[in-house]
């Protein structure tokens, strides 16, 4: 499908916040910002929801621990029980460390994968990359984008001046309409 929208470049986080407000006032809902470092105050404005990652990580940890302990117990007490140092076949205390470490391992892997998925990484191409000057989004420029459907996009094309004017008055160095596959 095609992603369409309008994107504007600012010099400071504060201008960015102002611009976001402008876009919301204009009635564009689907917003996102692109910044060199997190600008936390925009997150509520563009409606970033609380990350679900912690729940996944908890699940991963528990799973890892259970799995590891079961394997240990099954090997030592079920599959081939042998007398070792006169210890019980099911030597619970000795099985804890591995269970603990595995819990952390699985939890961490879950966390990492979750970030990649939720942050929509591993996407080397994104329409916003087409925007000229966007490479400074990771250095010292602050971008805000509004994603719109075809009809709205056509409207914006028709009368760009209105919205562009607003954004520029908010300090935009550059305002671009963009469209590209995603």
């Amino acid at each position, binding site marked *: 499908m095609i992603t369409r929208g309008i994107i504007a470049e600012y010099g*400071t986080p*504060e201008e960015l916040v102002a611009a976001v407000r402008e876009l919301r006032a204009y009635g564009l809902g689907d917003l*996102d*910002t*692109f*910044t*060199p*470092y*997190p*600008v936390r105050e*925009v*997150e509520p404005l*563009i409606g*970033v929801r609380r*990350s679900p*990652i*912690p729940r996944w990580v908890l699940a991963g*940890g528990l799973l890892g621990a259970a799995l*590891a302990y079961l394997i*240990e117990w099954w*090997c*030592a007490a079920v*599959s*081939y029980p042998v007398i*070792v*140092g006169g210890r019980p076949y099911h*030597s619970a205390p*000795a099985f804890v*460390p*591995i269970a*603990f*470490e*595995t819990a*952390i*391992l699985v*939890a*961490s*892997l879950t*966390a*990492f994968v*979750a*970030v*990649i998925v*939720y*942050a*929509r*990484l*591993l*996407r*080397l*191409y*994104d329409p916003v*990359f087409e925007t000229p000057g966007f*490479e*400074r*989004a*990771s*250095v*010292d420029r602050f971008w805000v984008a509004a994603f719109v459907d075809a009809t709205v996009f056509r409207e914006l094309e028709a009368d760009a001046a209105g919205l562009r004017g607003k954004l520029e008055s908010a*300090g935009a160095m550059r305002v671009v309409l963009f469209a590209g596959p995603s």
Partner: protein
Amino acid sequence: MTALVSSHASGEETPVETRVLLGNPTDGALTHELVDRLWSPGRAFPALLALTGTGSVGLFVAVVYTMTTGIGVWGNNIPVGWALGIVNFVWWIGIGHAGTFISAILYLLEQKWRTSINRFAEGMTLFAVVQAGLFPLLHLGRPWFFYWLVPYPSTMGVWPQFRSALPWDVVAVSTYLTVSLLFFYLGLIPDLAVVRDTAPERWRQRVYGVFALGWRGSARAWHHHRIGYLLLAGLATPLVLSVHSIVSMDFAISQLPGWHSTIFPPFFVAGAIYSGFAMVLTLIIPSRRIFHLERVVTAKHFDSMAKMLMVTGWIVTYSYAVEIFIAWYSGDPYERYVHLVNRPTGPYAFIFWTMLACNCLTPQLFWVKRFRTNEAVLFVAAILINVGMWTERFILIVTSESRDFLPSSWHLYRPSLIDLSLFVGTLSFFSFLFLLFLRFVPFIPVSELKDLKREIANENEPIGATEAAL
């Protein structure tokens, strides 16, 4: 540059530097200051790389020789079944603890000074753990069967023996390596994007682009990234503490006088962080000079790390004292012999006293303010502590083993040439990897610093002011 630091260090006229970031550069300036060096390697770089590379080749040769001929080429014997191999393992894994400690625990504690050095420390951690991981594998009589420590369904129908601390060790160390790597990489992604976007040539942009995983710095990405990073920090914290605890159990679960001790886990962890910080200092002091990092690595950092050395150094010293006291208090003749006779007066007494001097006396320097921020003093101290922590492991392992229960089986240990070349080899290999790290990775977290810069700015003046300024 000395001027800069010493002016802060030399007490009276100006107070000790408390800022973690000097001057007030623009985001762009800061970024380029920290990133552009990637495109202009120093003149010394190839030479150093060649040197350490040769050392690494030496390591490879020693490894192959050991593998093909047998552990007999080491100095080990019965009773000293483990020796330099495990000494080096514990030493390296210990060093590997500062990284995650700095990035994770200090992150949770919201220590600002952590920011500019954390990736540096994480890099060190990774490469140290790589060195460490080499030894448990090598010291096996039949390394080619290492996978028997992993519970896989074999046609023999037999399984690993999980009551031993060694399988714990395998899991702990590999987990530690993996998690450290994830943590390191997750933090690195935004900066890789920075490099991608500032690289001069297209191909460089592409290469870094791939590793940046298409990071766009979108608000949502930042949000999830922040949460994920926080969680990893939270997971890494108990991990750091557990890994060296488990390493310590390789000894603590045994019966051997000098090993059989309940104090080991905390003692080992403290020692690990102690040596870790020492190694961070050893590496960062020269790097700071070479790469002109005075702006981001300030006297404040030195001051804090010196204090860490003092704290951990005291924990270690305390542990020594407790060990000896308990040995005496227990009345157990074997324990007493190890701690009251063999170590202080036995054949390895010299190493024992070196250990005490290095580990207990050195950190006392840092009672003095100016020493805490004096590069020269810090550097020497760090080296001494590295040495001290190595001797500690030697004393711990070799003295205990060489004289245990039955005097009839007492026998001393002398390292062979291969033993030593393996140690030197890992040192070179470590440096080799670290050089590559410095060469190709943004080892000062740019994005985090810019964030920090803004945070500090906001602390200083209200946001409104900035708006007005525009």
